[in-house]
């Protein structure tokens, strides 16, 4: 560069609509590669100084066409696709999809399969909430919480690995029951964890609940009135932090949740701090459910008595001609599902997860639509951030706990 040359200029995009007088508004692209978005979300912010005037979320960077993929997989194969939607809560997705197809088939699950599903989805909720708490605190500047949370998360992932052979993409629930027999010694592993876990939640709370910086960054931030939330389609902990105890586990119990004793925590402040309180309390409640499932786990079969859907035991397959034929048919061509359509919802860690499955009577789904909680919740971003400071955008979107795979599908 010759002496006296100008430095490379930085171009700043200005907003199209400008106020009649006063400072001009600039546009800031937050993302798609911004650390606090936990994935690839782009927020187009129009700023007046440090105040956000307008916020437009731009999604789709992780769109993989999973719903199209469903249409060329047999029903059982498609279970593996559901893991990859909300990759922090794969078992919740497995469960919702399996329940939907089982509803179409009219299959009844034996008690052990139901209880095992409850126990593992609650561990999934803990797993998901731990990732949320760790990264949310990290965004706001509390580094150490992350290390504590991932310590416990590792234990949960090891439990998943013990059950399914996989840490994250478990696909452990299958249509008609579980993928494998529960492994020997699982009770001790789960008991070790659940005995320790409530003490760990106390530790997180010691770090954050009365922390002045934490309170300063979260209280009164990102609040939305309950009516707006309902109108915008927000569900899950965010809605409960606004005061509405809507929880599919209580309202529309599935997989024998009605047999478990747990509370649905709510707050009324509807701010980032209230969402934190709700999720922390949910962790304690989930631990209670896991404890009850562990203590009362029924004996008996772990898959349904439906030979045309569920693969036979290895021994039966080797000794009975009929079982061998079923095995061959299920593996090569899948099973046919009666014509119809169902919409099955469950309470995923993020809110209402719904699978709309349409069958035309063949062995592959005709159409599967996933009503994912992150997609619904993310619509509230503009409402939550407009008028707030840019630094609070980070706290607000962290409190939504979305997963971009779940948004874009």
């Amino acid at each position: 560069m010759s002496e006296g040359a100008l430095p490379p200029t930085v171009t700043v995009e200005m907003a199209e609509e400008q106020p009649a007088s006063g400072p001009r508004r600039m546009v800031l692209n937050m993302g798609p590669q911004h650390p606090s978005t936990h994935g690839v979300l782009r927020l187009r912010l129009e700023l007046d100084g440090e105040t956000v005037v307008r916020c437009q979320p731009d999604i789709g960077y992780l769109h993989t066409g999973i719903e199209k993929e469903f249409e060329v997989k047999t029903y059982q194969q498609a279970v593996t696709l559901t893991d990859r939607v909300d990759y922090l809560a794969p078992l919740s997705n497995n469960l919702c999809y399996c329940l939907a197809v089982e509803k179409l088939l009219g299959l009844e699950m034996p008690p052990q399969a139901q209880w095992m599903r409850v126990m593992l989805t609650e561990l999934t909720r803990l797993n998901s909430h731990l990732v949320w708490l760790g990264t949310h605190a990290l965004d706001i500047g509390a580094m150490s919480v992350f290390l504590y949370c991932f310590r416990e998360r590792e234990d949960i992932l090891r439990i998943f690995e013990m059950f399914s052979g996989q840490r994250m993409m478990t696909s452990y629930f299958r249509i008609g029951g579980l993928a494998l027999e529960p492994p020997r010694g699982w009770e001790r592993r789960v008991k070790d964890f659940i005995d320790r876990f409530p003490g760990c939640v106390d530790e997180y709370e010691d770090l954050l609940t009365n922390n002045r910086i934490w309170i300063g960054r979260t209280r009164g931030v990102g609040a939305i009135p309950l009516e707006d939330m309902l109108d915008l389609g927000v569900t899950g902990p965010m809605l409960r932090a606004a005061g509405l105890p809507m929880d599919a586990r209580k309202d529309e119990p599935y997989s024998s949740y009605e047999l478990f004793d747990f509370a649905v925590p709510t707050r009324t402040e509807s701010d980032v701090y209230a969402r934190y309180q709700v999720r922390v309390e949910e962790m304690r409640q989930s631990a209670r459910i896991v404890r009850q499932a562990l203590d009362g786990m029924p004996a008996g079969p772990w898959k349904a008595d439906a030979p045309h859907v569920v693969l036979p035991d290895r021994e039966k397959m080797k000794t009975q001609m009929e079982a061998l034929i079923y095995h061959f048919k299920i593996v090569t061509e899948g099973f046919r599902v009666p014509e119809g359509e169902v919409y099955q919802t469950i309470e995923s860690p993020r809110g209402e997860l719904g699978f709309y499955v349409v069958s035309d009577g063949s062995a592959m789904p005709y159409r599967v639509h996933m009503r994912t909680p992150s997609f619904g919740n993310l619509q509230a971003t503009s409402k939550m951030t407009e008028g707030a400071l840019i630094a609070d955008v980070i706290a607000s979107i962290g409190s939504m706990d979305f997963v971009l795979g779940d948004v874009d599908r």
Partner: protein
Amino acid sequence: MLPDSLQDRGVALAVEAFDSGAVQGGKFDRGEVTLEIAPARIASVCGYLKYDQKFVRLSSVTAVDRHPAEPRFEVVYHLHSVERKLRVRLKCRLPGGDPVIESVTSVWRAAGWYEREAFDLFGIRFTGHPDLRRIMLPDDWEGHPLRKDYPVTGSRV
């Protein structure tokens, strides 16, 4: 006229009483109520269900492509009443040539992104939508991938 399976369903009777021409069919199957609504009446029926029948939540809006049958598209709405612990599914059938339906964004803002998604992936246009553009795919994408005549694999030459 309501089909027999819906004669004892309160929601179905209420919608029928509100606008007898709106309900074109439906069924009660596997514990779920489905009402087929005339496409032209969808926004008014949704408004009635929200304000008079307490269906404060719109769970989702999506579509199903019945290609090559006609009418080709079904637009499917899942409504939820938190207070009544009740869900209902509304369905509108649209022709394949030019699938257009009135937007329900004026009833629930939640419909905004769901309708954009149906527009993006199925090519269904929602009139009165404040910001109808693609949401998942790039703006210059050609075609609508969730249509049945859109290939699953392969690349454009």
